[in-house]
């Protein structure tokens, strides 16, 4: 290991410092020189980087600059200590960092409650075409949710979970991404699929589990997945998709793709270990992933005050070394701008970004829940009417002359008709064949599964009256 002598300071002091550095592990320069790498994927631009020890991207060791750590030379204390992880200044005062700031982190918004553009607001401009598509898809999502929910109540569907109140998060975030960005949803983000072109019929097929369902009828409703639209199949377990997203980001980083991974989760999901681990990993790995938290106030019946005691989710980003922002999730324009900017940063700087989108879950957790048991219906009504994301954005696009009442009623009646037709067709479509119960467990069914399928078929043959008539054999 080379001793790098500094010409300016005294030889003894610098030698001593260098010996210290070399004997310490991570964070010291010797660690970096030990790992001079060739054949690395890429050298991202170093602008804006405050971290002098960067891994996974350098082909030569970085020259260390003592001043980059901010040497503290106040009168009382000249000492700084080179602990593993970097220099730390000492203080003789016993002072605890407060558990919370006196002021909460402010929330980025562009449109006010009435849909008027706030003066001097910073936002990414959207074209008429994109804005109208955003609004139309928000309306479509709302209608789709309502109709599917009703269908479940009528007994036509077994289960459903709405995204009512969170349409802006769903659609505006999807609009700011490209089709190559890979999505790892929780289960309340069908709008992202909708934006990318999933048809109402395809949604209905999955909900009814018929033979046109891409999931071959194996999962419960709202567990959509589409590899061609880069939307990874919903897995019901909370927050398990976060490490998966980091892995996908890692894969994109290796391939040097101009794309990022995006993952969604709720406020409840941030309590899971996977959330913390995934954020930590993403930061260490410098992975291009955007973490979007839909903080909608409720995890089934658990309010956020019982979920965590920090100032929401945005402050947790800093704990892991992740750039974060808090956004008004019901402001489509702000969501669009935030995700657009985040994506740029994530890919060009190869870093994760955390976005906390504040919103409200207007619907029940799912059709198995009646949220009036734990919250007042007044509260629900207020958010549904006064804080509705659709009406705010509608005001804005109408003020630009891009929308009208006529367009609204045309759209709504068209979508409603399409939905009802999709439902009708999906309901009538045959279910997948029984063999799909055993296929895709592995790439090829092994002998034990073939035996088990035979047993099931034998049982069905001997008791045909107990077997559902709409599942072909």
């Amino acid at each position, binding site marked *: 290991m080379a001793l790098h002598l500094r010409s300016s300071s005294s030889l003894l002091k610098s030698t001593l410092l260098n010996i210290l550095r070399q004997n310490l592990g991570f964070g010291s320069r010797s660690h970096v020189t*030990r*790992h001079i*790498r*060739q*054949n*690395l*994927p890429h050298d991202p631009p170093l602008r804006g980087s405050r971290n002098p020890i960067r*891994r*996974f991207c350098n082909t030569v060791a970085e020259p260390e600059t003592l001043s980059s750590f901010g040497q503290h030379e106040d009168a009382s204390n000249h000492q700084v200590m080179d602990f593993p992880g970097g220099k730390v200044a000492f203080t003789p005062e016993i002072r605890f960092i407060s558990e919370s700031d006196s002021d909460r982190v402010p929330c980025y918004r562009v449109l006010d409650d009435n849909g008027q553009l706030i003066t001097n607001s910073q936002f990414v401009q959207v074209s008429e075409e994109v804005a109208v598509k955003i609004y139309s898809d928000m309306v479509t999502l709302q209608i789709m949710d309502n109709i599917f929910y009703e269908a479940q109540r009528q007994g036509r569907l077994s289960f459903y979970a709405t995204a009512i109140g969170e349409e802006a998060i769903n659609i505006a975030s999807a609009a700011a991404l490209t089709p190559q960005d*890979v999505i*790892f949803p929780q289960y309340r983000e069908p709008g992202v699929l909708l934006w990318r072109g999933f048809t109402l019929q395809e949604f209905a097929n999955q909900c009814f589990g018929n033979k046109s*369902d*891409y*999931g*071959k009828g*194996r*999962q419960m409703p709202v*567990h959509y*997945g*589409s*590899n061609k639209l880069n939307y*990874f*199949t919903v*897995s*019901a*377990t909370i927050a*398990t*998709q*976060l*490490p*998966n*997203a*980091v*892995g*996908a980001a*890692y*894969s*994109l*980083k*290796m*391939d040097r793709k101009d794309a990022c991974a995006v993952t969604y989760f709720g406020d409840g999901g941030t309590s899971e*270990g*996977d959330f913390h*681990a*995934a954020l*930590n*990993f993403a930061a*260490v790995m410098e992975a291009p992933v955007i973490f979007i938290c839909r903080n909608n106030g409720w995890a089934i019946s658990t309010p956020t005050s019982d979920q965590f005691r920090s100032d929401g989710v945005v402050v947790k980003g800093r704990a892991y070394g992740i750039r974060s922002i808090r956004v008004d999730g019901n402001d489509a324009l702000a969501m669009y701008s935030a995700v657009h900017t985040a994506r740029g940063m994530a890919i060009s700087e190869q870093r994760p970004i955390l976005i906390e989108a504040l919103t409200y879950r207007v619907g029940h957790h799912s059709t198995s829940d009646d949220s009036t048991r734990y919250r007042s219906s007044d509260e629900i009504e207020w958010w549904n009417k006064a804080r509705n994301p659709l009406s705010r954005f509608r005001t804005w696009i109408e003020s630009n002359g891009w929308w009208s009442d006529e367009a609204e009623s045309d759209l709504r009646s068209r979508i409603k008709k399409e939905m009802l037709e999709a439902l009708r067709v999906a309901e009538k479509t045959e279910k997948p064949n029984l063999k799909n119960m055993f*296929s*895709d*467990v*592995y*790439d*090829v*069914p*092994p*002998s*034990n599964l*073939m*035996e088990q399928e035979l047993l099931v078929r034998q049982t069905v043959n001997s008791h045909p009256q107990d077997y559902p008539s709409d599942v072909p054999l």
Partner: protein
Amino acid sequence: MSAILLQGAGAGAATALSPFNSIDPNKLVVPSRSSLSVRSKRYIVAGSDSKSFGSSLIVRRSEPLIPNAVAAKADTAASSTSSKPGHELLLFEALQEGLEEEMDRDPHVCVMGEDVGHYGGSYKVTKGLADKFGDLRVLDTPICENAFTGMGIGAAMTGLRPVIEGMNMGFLLLAFNQISNNCGMLHYTSGGQFTIPVVIRGPGGVGRQLGAEHSQRLESYFQSIPGIQMVACSTPYNAKGLMKAAIRSENPVILFEHVLLYNLKESIPDEEYICNLEEAEMVRPGEHITILTYSRMRYHVMQAAKTLVNKGYDPEVIDIRSLKPFDLYTIGNSVKKTHRVLIVEECMRTGGIGASLTAAINENFHDYLDAPVMCLSSQDVPTPYAGTLEEWTVVQPAQIVTAVEQLCQ
């Protein structure tokens, strides 16, 4: 060592429901099972009996006994029919060789785990790989098994082929959620849209005074998970072969290594080969009794076999290697020949591999048994630290000899 060239076409998989009856037992190659791992590519596949290659397909009888329980030096068994000299290495080096070859061959193969990069892995299986392939492709992760297993799964769904290392198999209990709910399921629940070709590997089993938490036998906990395959290696030869096969498989595969077997030395072929993931290995053909075992217990069994032969018995020893699914073809043929079965495992009595294997044999080969299936396992206790106690939680050769004598009365 010449090997059999297999052009896997996946044919025969659909019809073989009772493969044991319909296939000529003299043929080394079995179509129905190999379709799982040998797809439309050409491989050099080593059949189960690694010792009888070449023109002779007849299972050999006059096998020299393995003199030591744990092979310290290269013995005659592995290289007796080699035409080429091969090269000698330790088991962990064989794993590393297999891994390196696959990483050379396919740029999508990557490694992730704790201390696998610059440190080279706690058991040196990934030594030198980070220097060669870069520290992004051989990735050091923070300590969260669930997270890096989840990462591997996400990366696999996006086209990579990660090899995920658990520093000790026991730590993968923390990754159970990702393995069970995502790894095993997502190919199925996505309707086949996403594949998860990961390899999850690591050392497990009872070591030398590693303590209860580091002596777990994860194969018994994982065996129920649908969608995954499990294999256990036991020699440098099958370690390299199984590692390569696991990486090439489209299914998620869990490769169980054993802490005490990493320094086994053997001579392995110079030319490329892989082992069939679903195949068991015939270690010692015999007539009187079938002894089924895997991983470290193979060596205890072989040591007991030495004693047994001196006492006049002729045990047939099979290293089952494939823990999920079981190679009921090889096992069934053996049972039909010997009519007596002894299972020797390291898992605990309750709910281990032995328990499932006992059930499978009883169900499928009941008519061929002259005696109840006997299973020797570890006791249902956490592994004690004290060396003397630890030794007695693991099945010893003396117990195996007694069990065989009992069964063969």
